[in-house]
């Protein structure tokens, strides 16, 4: 049985629907990310789990018990906030010990637990510092330790890294994953950063306008997006308008050039587009693959990769090449050949599969 | 997100509103009772037709304007200077700006009289000299408010960059101050000025002890001799404070409130 279950959860503020019919079963020890653009309802859903918002309808169950009537302070869920929300008047150690202190735990037990937690986040040297004497990254690690100190049944993280610098973000991301694995704690992680979601999660929930678009492992989400929205939101993708040549074989025409798609549904009526990730495209022509010819429109050098846009009969096609020292960067305006395997692309007509 | 109103909050809010309104309402009704048996504006007529009231009102209003001008001329360049040239002096300025709080008005006026009422100054011998002394006192009393208004205004704009931009375009110090800084500080100076003005209008001690016909002394005199006119004066005074605050609010919509006078 799943540890945490959200069953037909809906939430509306006045007339506005924030979350609609949200269903999810989270297994014990699982790391789940809620990913979506701002305003998609991911934070609201998290806050309903924490008890700060009350669902308009639906039930939240933890180990089969209904949580809905419980106030936040009796749910035993550890939450980490985007703004850290550390208590400014308490030292690092006092912050970590706060949950145990208000629970009336004996002093010795609190001290032990605080040391244990500070060791976990490698901040034992900072026990007597106040939050404003710590860097953003340290503060957020402390907030994590504080949330974990009460041995919560579920760990909730609300965009914990978005206030931090890129480099610290990367470090802390790995640390969160390490600690989560070490403790085996069920975790819900809200983010708008797809890279965080892809790198951290066991499963990702993609949300849009209060509705779940897709639930799946990072690979499922990235390689087999359930909708155009998911395909475009996670990673880069070419979505090229095409003309259907042979509907039952997935053969289409891009401008004047014929392409065969590996996956296609019922292409009834609506305009059809060819979807293929830029990294699937290679320079040159290959027998048996899809081949396109066009003119180089622009070249963007990004360090590790080089993004090239090719004008194929009026459509812009992006392809990513890995950088090498010996790489000859193509010149704008020159003719260019690209190829990609049939299995790498699919056809979509905008209807959710 | 609709929150339920907290019953305790409503209790305190209602209590506070009673504290505000009961004396106000009581005073207003009392002020209408000069004529036995009927409600009338007789007390107001009596006050407004009193030549002494008009004289003291005019005197205090004039002093108010003088105080505002002196305050601005004195403080604006100084605060600007601190922002541009001597940021290290800011703590000193902050301390000076709370001095009038440490030295109560009654102590200040005592010192002013004993210092300038004797040789070599002997300012209190002529009424003009006394007025100079009073105006100086008003400037000191209202300094914390004027300083804070200007300081807040300067902080909200990037004085240094603006100055450098103006200099870069070829203006001299005076032009920077009058063409760039002053227009951007209009609202801050205006609210500071209204605070100054209201302070002067409500002030009792300086006018009373230096024996000049200020509004405060006039009111105190009426309070000693009449029954209903003081109530009418209180309402008029309410109205005046209200007007100053209303103007500040109007000119600085959305900004934070400020306290007007010291007592």
């Amino acid at each position, binding site marked *: 049985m799943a540890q945490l279950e959200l069953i037909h959860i809906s939430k509306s503020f006045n007339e506005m629907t924030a979350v609609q019919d949200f269903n999810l079963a989270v297994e014990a020890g699982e790391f789940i990310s809620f990913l979506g653009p701002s305003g998609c309802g991911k934070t609201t859903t998290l806050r309903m789990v924490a008890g700060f918002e009350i669902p308009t309808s639906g039930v939240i169950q933890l180990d089969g018990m209904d949580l809905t009537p419980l106030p936040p*302070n*009796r749910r035993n869920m550890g*939450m980490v906030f985007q703004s850290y*929300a550390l*208590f400014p*008047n*308490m030292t690092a150690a006092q912050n970590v010990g*706060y949950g145990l202190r*208000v629970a009336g735990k004996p002093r010795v037990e609190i001290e032990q637990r605080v040391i244990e937690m500070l060791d976990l986040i490698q901040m034992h040297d900072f026990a007597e510092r106040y939050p404003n004497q710590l860097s953003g990254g340290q503060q957020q690690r402390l907030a994590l330790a*504080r*949330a974990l100190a009460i041995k919560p049944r579920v760990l909730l993280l609300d965009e914990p890294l978005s206030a931090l610098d890129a480099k610290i973000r990367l470090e802390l991301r790995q640390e969160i994953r390490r600690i989560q694995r070490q403790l085996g704690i069920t975790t819900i992680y809200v983010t708008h950063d797809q890279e965080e979601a892809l790198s951290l999660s066991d499963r990702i929930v993609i949300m849009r306008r209060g509705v779940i678009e897709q639930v799946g492992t990072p690979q499922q989400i990235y390689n087999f997006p359930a909708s155009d929205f998911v395909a475009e939101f996670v990673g880069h993708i070419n979505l090229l308008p095409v003309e259907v040549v042979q509907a039952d074989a997935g053969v289409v025409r891009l401008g004047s050039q014929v392409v065969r798609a590996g996956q296609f549904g019922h292409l009834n009526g609506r305009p059809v587009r060819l979807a293929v990730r830029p990294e699937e495209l290679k320079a040159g022509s290959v027998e048996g693959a899809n081949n396109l010819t066009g003119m180089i429109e622009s070249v963007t050098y990004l360090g590790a990769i080089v993004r090239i846009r090719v004008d194929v009969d009026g459509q812009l096609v992006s392809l990513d090449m890995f950088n090498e020292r010996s790489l000859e960067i193509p010149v704008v305006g020159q003719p260019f050949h690209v190829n990609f395997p049939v299995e790498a692309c699919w056809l979509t007509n905008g209807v959710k599969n | 997100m609709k929150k339920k*109103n*907290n019953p*305790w*909050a*409503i209790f*305190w*809010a209602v209590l*506070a*509103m009673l*504290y505000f309104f009961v*004396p106000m309402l*009581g*005073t207003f009704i*009392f002020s209408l009772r000069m004529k036995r048996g009927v409600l009338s504006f007789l007390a107001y007529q009596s006050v407004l037709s009193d030549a002494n009231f008009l004289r003291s009102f005019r005197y205090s209003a004039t002093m108010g304007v003088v105080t505002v001008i002196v305050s601005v001329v*004195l403080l604006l360049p*100084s605060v600007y*200077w601190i922002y541009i*040239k*001597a940021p*290290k*002096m800011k703590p000193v300025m902050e301390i000076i700006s*709370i001095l009038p*709080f*440490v*030295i*109560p*008005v*009654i*102590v200040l006026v*005592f*010192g*002013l009289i004993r*210092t300038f009422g004797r040789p070599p100054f002997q300012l209190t011998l002529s009424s003009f000299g006394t007025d100079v002394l009073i105006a*100086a006192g008003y*400037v*000191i009393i209202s300094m914390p408010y004027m300083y804070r208004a200007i300081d807040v205004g300067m902080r909200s704009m990037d004085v240094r960059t603006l100055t*450098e931009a103006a200099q870069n375009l070829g203006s001299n110090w005076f032009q920077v101050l009058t063409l760039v800084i002053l227009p951007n500080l209009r609202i801050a100076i205006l609210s500071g000025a209204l605070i100054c003005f209201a302070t002067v209008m*409500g002030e*009792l*001690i300086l006018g009373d002890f230096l024996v000049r016909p200020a509004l405060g002394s006039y*009111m*105190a005199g009426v309070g000693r001799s009449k029954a209903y006119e*003081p*109530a009418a004066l*209180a309402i008029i005074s309410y109205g005046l404070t209200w007007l100053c605050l209303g103007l500040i609010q109007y000119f600085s919509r959305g900004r934070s409130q400020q*306290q*007007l006078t*010291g*007592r």
Partner: protein
Amino acid sequence: MIAGQNKRIHGKGQAGWKTWIGLLPFFLFITFFLVMPSLTLFSGAFQDAEGRFTLANFSFLENTFALKSYLTSIWVSLTTSLIGGIFGFFVAYATTSSRAPRWMSNILSTFSGLAANFGGVPLAFAFIATLGRTGFITALLKGVCFNGADGAAICPFNPYDHGFNLYSAAGLILAYTYFQFPLMVLTITPALEGLKKEWSEASANLGSNSAQYWRYVALPVLLPSLLGATILLFGNAFGAYATAQALTGGSIYLVTIMIGQQIRGDVLGNPNEGYALAFGMVIIMSLTIVLYILLQRKTARWLKL
């Protein structure tokens, strides 16, 4: 352009007279009209009539009359700053975070601005007109019947027959509260608004109830602001003169009233003793500020880096 940059480097590098010159008019003014008068009083406080150094002027501390005025002033200021402070805190609490209906909050914040600035003589007039012997409320109460302790109806009810007197310290406290609590509302509201919603949420999330949140988080965070506001209120009342003078006609002996009478006619019989009295006020105000700074340093260690 280059000249402008040079000026800046000069201004920063040379800390000497050049940084002072722009402030000269201001400092001259302050010296003349604030520092010199204060020094006159301070030096006078330590001199006898012939200008010799003495501590005799402070013998008023043995004079029960003058000493009592200090005690009365401190008592009135302390009481009104505590009553006004606590009341004002609750009102500010009610008006933030939409705890009370919005229209109430709007009225209260507007009137706090008004009432905090409404003092002096007119305030005394307002209270006399409302609660004085013939005041509006007094007159109303005289028409109301009350059941006395023995069950007998008391009619009419005159509060002045039951221990109330506006022209006393109690009346003064009542009147001062009219400007004290709104001043508290104005000064503490920004601090209350500075309490982050996330703190209370984090606290609840960690299992605390609302009383624990206030005890361990909100009040400690607010403490420096609360202290500062209370000190401001104390000074506000301590230096007040006009309201007391107009309300009681000088029959209540506050230090300010004593000094006023000393300016007018040397009631102490020794001009230098008046200086000592005024000097004492400044000392008390300075001590208050120092106390405040010390307390703030202690309670707000976490504020500083």
